[in-house]
């Protein structure tokens, strides 16, 4: 059982336990003796089962179990201690166990709410609020059930509930460390990159584009989705002029995966101001990193990219030889892009398919009809890639894989989520059952180039209630906080920095650090044994723990966020800054 499914199972068991106790309490209040005893026994069983899931989660990593051990476990224990003995004594009047059973139900429910609404890290504030809720609900039930508690118990309950409520609210409302992200244009501004040799102009504007025969309202660069393909050869200097015709919420260009100087990174409010209608911004950088990249707006990025403000950036080491195809996969207004393309390729020709995922969710790519190698991931060449046959690859949101093969005599087809996107002739294949490549075990290993790390950061990904904005929201959080309240990670130029990223939520988070590529050290405690993987986009699945590291060699203020852009908008964005 994976840690991800264990997290889900634990939630389900917690719900069953809470429902069992509450149901048992209600049944005993209604003097349904057999039902009450049955439900209570079931709840007791579920509570014990939860002890097992919590222990297993704690062994997988403290992050997954912290609040369950510190808050849920004591509350569950209280539930069992209060309700258990009463049941064993088999009371004459079943109604007398209603309050203990309801207490157990409230304890389990509030522990569950702590996990759902608060999560990691466990805090005294959340624990006290949970206690306040349990005591208050129990006191109210006690009164409502007629058998009023003695005055002392009553007053004691009120005092405990109020004290816990006040302290808990106080602790929860204390503003966390929320330093504003400094607006910083210093880094790299004055860097001279030489006279441009490749000039492009991208004009962003609303447009109507045709997708699979349907007219779709889009936001487009130069009236097309995807935008123009920008190509360069190593040694070029790129100059891209961005103009905004009528995108009211502003646009920028972020060079996804391409490690530009900070001033060219295109993050509004951090490295530049958003380009508003009528304005322009000129990006200039050296083409010195060969590989497959893409560009997209980083202003209202979720909506902007979804509406079509993206395109391909390819830097080639030398002029093209053989067949070189880019496949930027996107979903525009629910319709899949690009349109399927068929072109005959001469047998024996070398083919490179540059697969790009510009959506916010993972896509599955399967190349049928030929053995192939994965030559590069996220723009970095792999070491010693071996030929693969009938194997699918999963590309995270924002990620790129370069597949290479020699064209066979027979047709070849590339399937994306079972849809043919590129082929060299008519062919069909069932690729659904193919195994998926694990890049961590693919290719030839090299030792990790560093023996120690100067900085280590842990990022625990979760969901939680964020009350710091104008309206409360159910945010996607990092270490219990949501943007803009996540403290920036501070590094020094030259540091070797290690990230440990743990996902305790139920959804995939494709992680993306700007301005750097990270070397994968391990996933879920197992070291990477394949080719060194220098990634800029990687899927941290539910229950996953990734360890990655990188040299801090590109000074500036960098966004570090989930590339499911809806999640980034909902709080899952922080910044890495150089001291």
């Amino acid at each position: 059982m994976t840690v991800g499914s264990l997290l889900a199972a634990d939630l389900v068991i917690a719900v069953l336990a809470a429902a069992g106790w509450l149901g048992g309490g209600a049944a005993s209040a209604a003097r349904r003796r057999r039902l009450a005893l049955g439900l209570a026994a079931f709840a007791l069983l579920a509570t014990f089962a939860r002890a097992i899931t919590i222990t297993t989660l704690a062994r997988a990593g403290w992050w997954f179990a912290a609040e369950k051990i510190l808050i849920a476990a004591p509350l569950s224990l209280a539930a069992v201690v209060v309700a258990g003995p009463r049941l064993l004594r088999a009371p004459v009047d079943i109604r007398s166990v209603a309050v203990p059973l309801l207490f157990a139900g409230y304890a389990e429910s509030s522990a569950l709410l702590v996990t759902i609404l608060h999560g990691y890290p466990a805090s005294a504030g959340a624990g006290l609020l949970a206690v306040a809720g349990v005591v208050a609900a129990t006191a109210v039930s006690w009164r409502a059930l007629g058998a009023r508690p003695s005055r002392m118990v009553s007053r004691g309950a009120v005092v405990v509930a109020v004290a816990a409520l006040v302290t808990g609210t106080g602790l929860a409302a204390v503003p966390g460390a929320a330093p504003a992200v400094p607006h910083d244009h210093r880094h790299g501004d004055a860097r001279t990159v030489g006279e441009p040799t490749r000039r492009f102009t991208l004009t962003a504007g609303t447009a109507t584009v045709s997708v699979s025969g349907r007219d779709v309202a889009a936001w487009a660069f130069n009236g097309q989705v995807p935008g123009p393909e920008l190509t360069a050869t190593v040694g070029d200097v790129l100059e891209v002029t961005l103009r905004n015709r009528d995108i009211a919420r502003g646009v920028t260009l972020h060079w996804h995966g391409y490690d530009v100087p900070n001033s060219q990174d295109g993050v509004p409010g951090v490295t530049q101001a958003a380009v508003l209608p009528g304005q322009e911004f000129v990006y200039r950088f050296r083409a010195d990193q060969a590989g497959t990249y893409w560009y997209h707006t980083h202003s209202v990025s979720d909506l902007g990219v979804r509406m079509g403000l993206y395109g391909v950036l390819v830097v080639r080491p030398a002029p093209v030889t053989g067949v070189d195809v880019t496949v930027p996969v996107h979903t525009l207004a629910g319709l899949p892009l690009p349109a399927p393309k068929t072109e005959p390729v001469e047998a024996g020709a070398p083919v490179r398919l540059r697969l790009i995922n510009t959506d916010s969710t993972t896509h599955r790519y399967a190349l049928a009809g030929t053995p192939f190698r994965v030559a590069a991931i996220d723009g970095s060449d792999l070491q010693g890639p071996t030929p693969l046959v009938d194997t699918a690859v999963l590309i995270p949101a924002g990620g790129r894989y370069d597949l290479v093969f020699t064209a066979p005599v027979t047709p070849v087809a590339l399937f994306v989520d079972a849809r043919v996107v590129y082929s060299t002739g008519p062919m069909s294949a069932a690729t659904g059952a193919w195994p998926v490549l694990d890049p961590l075990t693919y290719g030839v290993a090299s030792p990790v180039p560093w023996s120690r790390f100067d900085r280590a950061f842990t990022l625990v990904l979760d969901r939680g209630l964020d009350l710091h904005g104008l309206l409360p929201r159910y945010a996607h959080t990092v270490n219990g906080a949501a943007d803009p309240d996540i403290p920036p990670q501070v590094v020094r130029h030259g540091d070797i920095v290690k990230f440990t990223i743990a996902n305790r939520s139920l959804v995939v988070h494709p992680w993306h650090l700007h301005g750097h590529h990270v070397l994968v050290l391990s996933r879920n405690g197992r070291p990477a044994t394949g080719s060194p993987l220098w990634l800029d986009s990687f899927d941290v699945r539910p229950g996953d723990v990734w360890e990655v590291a990188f040299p801090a060699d590109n000074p500036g203020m960098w966004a570090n966020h989930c590339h499911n852009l809806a999640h980034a908008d909902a709080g899952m964005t922080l910044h890495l800054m150089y001291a």
Partner: protein
Amino acid sequence: MRKALVIVTTVLLVAFVLQFAFAAVGAFTKPASEGAYALHSVTGMAVIPVLILLTALFAVLAKAPGRLIGLAILPLGLVVLQALIAMLANASTDAAGASTPVGLTIAGLHALNGIIAVHVVVSVHQAARKLARPAPAGATQVTVREGEPA
């Protein structure tokens, strides 16, 4: 207070009816997207829980019998469960993010739980109306506990 209880349960019932309509809005919005369920999410996670808490509060203030108070608070548990089922259903996808039979089965529970919740709310509404009706003199003792004004 009993009139107020009837009113707030009526509003809650209307919110539930709208909630079903908003689910349909989400299901039939083209192109399909998570955003299509924004109304459904806000109603389910903010409006309805607040209305349920109000209902329970008014039930207590109206000195309704414990059974009715319990019945009034029950939908809150079902609504939390409802959000959890939605989360689990969305989480039960394959590696490429496509639905799985397990995920769709869980999604089915979301609909069933919704039906159960609306039935509970209907019962609360009916009980509240019964409570507000001036009871015949002989029947008061049956439904009202001692020490409370009939």
